[in-house]
């Protein structure tokens, strides 16, 4: 088995998920210049609610096929995470829209802790295995193995990302989002309902977050109430790597980060003579974050902008 190609495939899968989550960060940042640190918890909620919904659906005894159960669970989880995203914006960010930027950052962390602890109360602080309902038959791919599930994750993620880019470029809501991100006051004076646009940005980002949460759960086979922290931080790194606020950048940054991490983890053991095992893979994401912040804070695709006077 070719380890390089295998790690490349794994990286692409993880990277597609990072990219989906990074889009949630970057959409909100583009419009509000706010880092919504609660977004990782939305992803967690998506995964946990889907698991519960699947167990309820299978308990009905209708005997639905596995993929239908997963999609059904997701369709229950998505509206709930969308509602959570909507409420977060209303109670934690909207009252602070004209406050110093540090204030909503702190409420973001607060909301993040609240959601995490609510999840601990509801689901207990144990990992839950994600029901094994999806086909993961392996296919040979240039000496490496790619499973059905991995193909579905990558294809679905790319489809959603293209859909989102089309929405932002070609629809009335997308135009309004861009207008608000360029100049909020002028967009309002031209008749754009700013509060609606911001609410919908959170709703759409949270919907994507739920899908990403299910992908994480299905890919690793488990989910737990504190998973949102690390996955959120990684996706945030991906958004910064691509240039935060830039949608294309979030996609590129996510996929690139996934590949760096997987390939790096694959060679970490041999390179360090076995001192550091592949479970140290997280260091790559944060090395990337530090390097980007030091050498190219605007990210790969972000515009270099002068500090505003």
């Amino acid at each position: 088995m070719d380890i390089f190609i295998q790690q490349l495939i794994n990286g692409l899968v993880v990277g597609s998920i990072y990219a989906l989550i990074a889009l949630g960060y970057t959409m909100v940042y583009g419009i509000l210049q706010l880092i919504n640190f609660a977004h990782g918890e939305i992803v967690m909620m998506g995964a946990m609610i889907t698991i519960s919904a699947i167990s309820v659906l299978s308990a009905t005894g209708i005997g639905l096929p596995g993929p239908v159960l997963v999609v059904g669970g997701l369709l229950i989880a998505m509206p709930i995470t969308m509602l959570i995203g909507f409420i977060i914006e209303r109670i934690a960010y909207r009252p602070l829209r004209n406050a110093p930027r540090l204030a909503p950052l702190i409420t973001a962390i607060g909301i993040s802790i609240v959601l995490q602890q609510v999840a601990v109360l509801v689901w207990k602080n144990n990992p839950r295995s994600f029901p094994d309902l999806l086909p993961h038959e392996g296919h040979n791919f240039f000496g490496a193995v790619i499973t059905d599930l991995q193909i579905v994750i990558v294809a679905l993620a790319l489809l959603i990302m293209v859909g989102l880019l089309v929405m932002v470029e070609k629809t009335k809501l997308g135009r309004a989002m861009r207008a608000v991100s360029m100049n909020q006051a002028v967009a309002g004076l031209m008749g754009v309902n700013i509060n609606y646009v911001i609410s919908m940005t959170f709703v759409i980002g949270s919907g994507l977050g739920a899908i990403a949460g299910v992908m994480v759960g299905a890919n690793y086979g488990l989910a737990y109430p504190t998973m949102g922290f690390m996955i959120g931080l990684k996706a945030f790194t991906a958004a910064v790597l691509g240039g935060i606020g830039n949608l294309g950048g979030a996609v590129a940054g996510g996929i690139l980060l996934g590949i760096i991490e997987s390939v790096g983890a694959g060679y970490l053991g041999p390179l360090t003579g076995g001192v550091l095992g592949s479970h140290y893979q997280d260091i790559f994401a944060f090395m990337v974050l530090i390097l980007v912040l030091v050498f190219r804070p605007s990210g790969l695709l972000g515009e270099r902008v002068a500090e505003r006077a």
Partner: protein
Amino acid sequence: MANQANTELLLEISGIHKRFGGLCALNDVALSINKGEIYGLIGPNGAGKTTLFNVLTGLYQPDEGKFTFKGIDLFRQKPNVVVDSGIARTFQNIRLFHNMTALENVMVGRHVRTKAGVIGAVFRNPGTRVEEAAIKARSLELLDYVGIRKHAEEHAKNLSYGDQRRLEIARALATDPQLLALDEPAAGMNGKETDDLKRLMEKIRADGVTILLIEHDVKLMMGLCDRIAVLDYGKKIAEGVPEVVKNDPRVIEAYLGATPD
């Protein structure tokens, strides 16, 4: 000149106060604009003209006063509600969406006159597509109306200064306003551009849109406006037809300083 017998009141404000800390930027300002007129607003720098514009378009919340438009109460309403009621504006310092095309800028202006929301954006159902096509068609029409259709696909930031001003007017017209508020549209324009602009404003008025105009170019104002109000230190010191305002001693004093006699 507006015939007093059959004028119809469009906008009316009275007792408007706006303070910034200790500074009273607008002090008991009242004015009324009739349907179909070109109403000018002049005054020395810092007199409160743009502040009044910001109050009339919902950007600033006045501290007290009355503000009605077509009989609708707009006191302390949000900007998008004001736009929806039929007041649109341009800016003293051009404020376009620079990284959008000229066409997209105008399309944003159609926002209040169209219905599609998040459902339409995600599912792009036939109704949404029809509406989107109508938005585009109307926006191209407006670019044509102000004479910059050939620049439709260019980014707003790449347009010439005069064309950017025209684009702002097209974007404001896209909201189907009954009152168009223009904040120094001729600033920085040469003589020919100013003449073209004057013709454009007359065309807009002939098409049934009332115009509220701030401008420093006194010659342009005298030739264009039906009535003029003069602001000084946040107070309205004169109002009337251009000939009368021009010769009002308080106006001359505000612009040139008191004459010692």
